């Protein structure tokens, strides 16, 4: 069976700097896979390559077995690869209702629809309601996004990506900056993501990695340093040296 997402010999050079160094990696169907690495390991560059913001110097990216290396970012989203952002990238002047409605109607081909009023299609409305409830946004649907509590904004951040009905979801530090009181709600919704969505979690927070992931890849200096189950990686003394030791010091 084809991997949900796969890279083959992925390289990215910025002048003399090798930011992504020959990364060959598989995200299995339905996986809960974490990608960790110290600051500057090249996690952001790798996400940008996967989502199409950057073009790789060489190598291939495959989504459900199909080569998407040359596709533009929005085409990849349409093929089922969605991401969230470490720093909220929302639409401050829009409401969660409009934001989710935008993503849903865009996916159902509504973005080219310029004559019907948003929300006149039944299937779009049903899906907005389902997503709002799943991400616990039902009671703030009409607030202006810029006025939402930070934890709610983080939930909306994931909800928008989820509204693209991805088969592969890249979560970039979903809990970053969320205050303790709102953390539980966020982690619960992340844990409750349906299993038919394969998730790659890019994360600094080791508690979240250990509670969520079943596999871990460690990225160091742009290259895959090691990969294994949670137990293997957390027991690996070399990983402790390059990463875990450092995170204890933080």
């Amino acid at each position, binding site marked *: 069976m084809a991997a949900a997402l796969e890279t083959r010999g992925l390289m990215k050079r910025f002048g003399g700097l090798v930011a992504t160094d020959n990364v060959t990696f598989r995200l299995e169907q339905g996986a809960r896979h974490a990608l960790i690495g110290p600051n500057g390991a090249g996690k952001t560059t790798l996400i940008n390559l996967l989502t199409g913001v950057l073009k790789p110097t060489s190598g291939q990216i495959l989504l459900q077995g199909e080569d998407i290396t040359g596709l533009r970012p929005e085409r990849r989203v349409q093929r089922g690869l*969605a991401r969230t952002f470490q720093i909220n990238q929302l639409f401050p002047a829009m409401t969660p209702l409009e934001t989710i409605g*935008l993503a849903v109607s*865009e996916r159902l081909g509504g*973005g080219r629809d*310029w004559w019907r009023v*948003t929300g006149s299609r039944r299937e779009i409305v049903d899906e907005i309601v389902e997503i709002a*409830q799943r991400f*616990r946004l039902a009671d703030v649907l009409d607030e202006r996004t810029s006025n939402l509590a930070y934890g709610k904004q983080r939930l909306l951040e994931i909800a928008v*990506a989820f509204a693209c009905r991805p088969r592969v979801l890249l979560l970039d530090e979903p809990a970053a900056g969320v205050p303790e009181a709102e953390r539980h709600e966020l982690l619960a919704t992340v844990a409750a993501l349906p299993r038919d969505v394969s998730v790659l979690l890019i994360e600094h927070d080791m508690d979240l990695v250990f509670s969520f992931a079943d596999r871990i890849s460690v990225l160091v200096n742009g290259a895959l340093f090691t990969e294994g189950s949670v137990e293997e990686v957390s027991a690996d003394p070399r990983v402790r040296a390059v990463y875990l030791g450092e995170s204890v010091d933080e």
Partner: protein
Amino acid sequence: MHADPTAETATPSSTADAVRRRLVRKGRWSVAEIAFWLVAAATLVFLPERHLILNEIAIIGLFALSLDLILGYAGIVSLGHAAFFGFGAYAAGILAKHGLADPLLGLAVASLATALLGFATSFLVLRGTDLTKLMVTLGVALLLGEIANQASWLTGGADGLQGISMGPVLGLFEFDIFGTTAYAYSLAVTFVLFVIARRIVVSPFGLSLRSIRDNPLRARAVGIPVNRRLVAVYTLAAAYAGVAGALLAQTTQFVSLDVLAFHRSADIMLVLVIGGAGYLYGGLLGAIGFKILQDILSAWTPQYWQFWIGLILVVLVLAGRERLTDRVKALWPRSRPSPDGKAQALPVTPAREV
């Protein structure tokens, strides 16, 4: 599916109904809107001696509406929107001069031609900062102005395009010296185009434009082909501006280089700032406000009226239109503004809901 513990005991289907109602509500016309257009129609009967200036207001309103589509909804700044206004005016004028006397047919051809120009130049405003866009749009307008000046065999150059004779509208209504047919014609065209624009901005397409204005990075990340959408709305806005220009040419039966001049582009920005960007009525209300101000100020102080216009502009922009309107709204306790950070910095004036 995860049930929401905080939601009331509403069944999912009633929640869906509520959501649908809230979404569809935006497509519905409010009483104030209907009243606005009824008053506009009533001026046809009740203000016969003002039809010439009302015609001008309708045309400027449509022109500003066109700018609102790209500035208020898609966040594209332009200092050269007169390029399309002027192009449409010359297209309609030249067509009429060479025998195409039917106003509506001329309007259609002129707007299509302007849409083509808009499409071709849209690719220049896709990239770059706001400053780049300002300069590129300004440059395109200057280019067209100079071309119109040089091609005097076609445009009449500095003397203007003369000898335009228009046929009757729909073959029935001759243009008269009081401007009544002209105003009725311009108002009807503006109304039809307004209805279409109003529909567009509440559609998923319109929603995607607002998302691009707010955050193009995220818009791409939800699968929106950002560039294609911007090209589409820029082309549409160009067609609208072209229609406005064509209306001016047809109803005044004269076109001069003035239609492409820089002050046209600047004035229309001013009109939109006065009326407020991002809710479609801003252009129309701004046109009324601008013309009335111009009328009052130039009667009061013919040489210095621009001083006052300038002062008003500075006050509006510095104090912030939002804050001024909220102050006024706060006088009525029932419509007190929500205690939120309305002054939050956004790249352009935030869209208010239609």
